[in-house]
């Protein structure tokens, strides 16, 4: 998987809809300067590892049934 680019996220913002985050805020996700979000690329890398694990037909978590 390639490293996420600022332009990719700007394209998502502009073309897929959603709140219009400022370019600087998008930039912080891919090239952190303020140190607020430092792990977005790591998060994506880890999610890619998780994607390759076969969960078979396991459903998403819901409520916890009572006794």
């Amino acid at each position: 998987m390639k490293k996420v680019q600022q332009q990719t996220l700007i394209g998502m913002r502009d073309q897929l809809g959603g709140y219009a985050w400022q370019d600087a805020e998008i930039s912080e996700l891919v090239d952190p300067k303020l140190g607020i979000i430092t792990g977005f690329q790591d998060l994506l890398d880890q999610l890619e590892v998780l994607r390759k694990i076969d969960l078979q037909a396991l459903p998403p978590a819901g409520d916890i049934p009572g006794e």
Partner: protein
Amino acid sequence: MTDSLVFRPITEMATVLRNEEIGAAQLLRQYAERIERLADSSKAFISLDLERAADKAAAIDAQAHSGSQLSGIPYACKDLFDVQGMVTTGGSKLLSDNVAQQDAEVVRRMDRAGAIFIGKNNLHEFAYGATGENEIFGTPPNPYDPTRLAGGSSSGSASAVGYGLCAAALGTDTGGSVRAPAALCGLVGFKPTFGRISTEGVIPYSWTLDHVGTLTRTAADAAILFEALVPGYQKSEAVRLDGLTIGIPEAFFFERCDREILDSVDHLMNFLRHAGARFKPVAMPSMEYTRTVSLTVQMPEALSYHNRYLEQRGELYSQDFRAGLALGQCLLAEQYIRAKRFIESYRRDVNAVFDEVDTILTPATPAIAPLIGAVEVMVDGFAEPAGNAITRYTSFFNMTGHPAITFPCGMHSAGLPIAAQLVGRHHADEALLETTRLIEQAYDFVLPLPDLK
């Protein structure tokens, strides 16, 4: 005995009130006097309503005692909970005009039990963070050392009980936000089975992970609050330490941990062994990606709720919370669903562990309360972001939804409390509370009160 009740557990206060050795109004005045002196330094409260509290105390004193152990007991709640007529700020500038039209369900339940609401506690903005730092309302310090954090996100709730400004407090726990600050401040922090206590009227952070919990002085007090807060409360069947099977995770939960914390938990385990408990190593799911799974659920859910404010007032969020929300928008739907499927997998794996044991024991936190302003803490030679360290042993059980409680078990040489965590089966909240109460009663450790001079 009635001179300084503020640091006594609710169980003792209830007896004194029931025997009319002191009235609810007099007890409230003891707290009000302390709040006047310590509210600024503790930074525990965002708002107070002592007038309404005094009216309720007077009304309680004028009636025959109801029999409720919470009758006349002053409590506070994190400023995510709606209280009719008061502003619910969420610890943010954003909601400075957000006056609640009705009480949250848990506030109604506390009121019905006779507890006296006194005010709303400070917190990490919208519960987004475990350090409890808040640039608007200040950062609550630790009652044992004001240079250190109370911890968060229910920072003001921990500070309020720790400074003796109320008898108990309600908080929310999405990754340990009740249990961790309670542990750092020498209190008992309890989060029930997911869904057992209503979150209606509480500003959400992450619907999948949010739990309403309690901060009290003792496990017995936590049980009193739980009985009032939960529909369908069932008194625990008899629990005995003799014969209790306690699971000890084979990996992760005792790793990269302060040596003195490990020693204290080891001392507790020796006590439990002498009391007849058996220990069994248990294999928990791999923790390698659990933080990733949790974040992947948290941030899109937080964004989904806060979307209602972003267009009109988005600039009023703090910079770090906005960054987290922006991250939530850049995750894919399938990644979110996959994360929720991993949560289901964790739940099933931990349920299987409970086929073999009655409870699971871990340290509550791997480190003592960090210094205020510290970005990272060193734990056993490794640097780690302070917020991550505080919740490293607690956040997993928000995903699995198992009830969990943290309670003091030692004092660090740095003068700060050390705590252990017990985890129970789904819906075995009452048994977990009773087990902890038995430990509390029999264990030869008494936490010294903080020196607040």
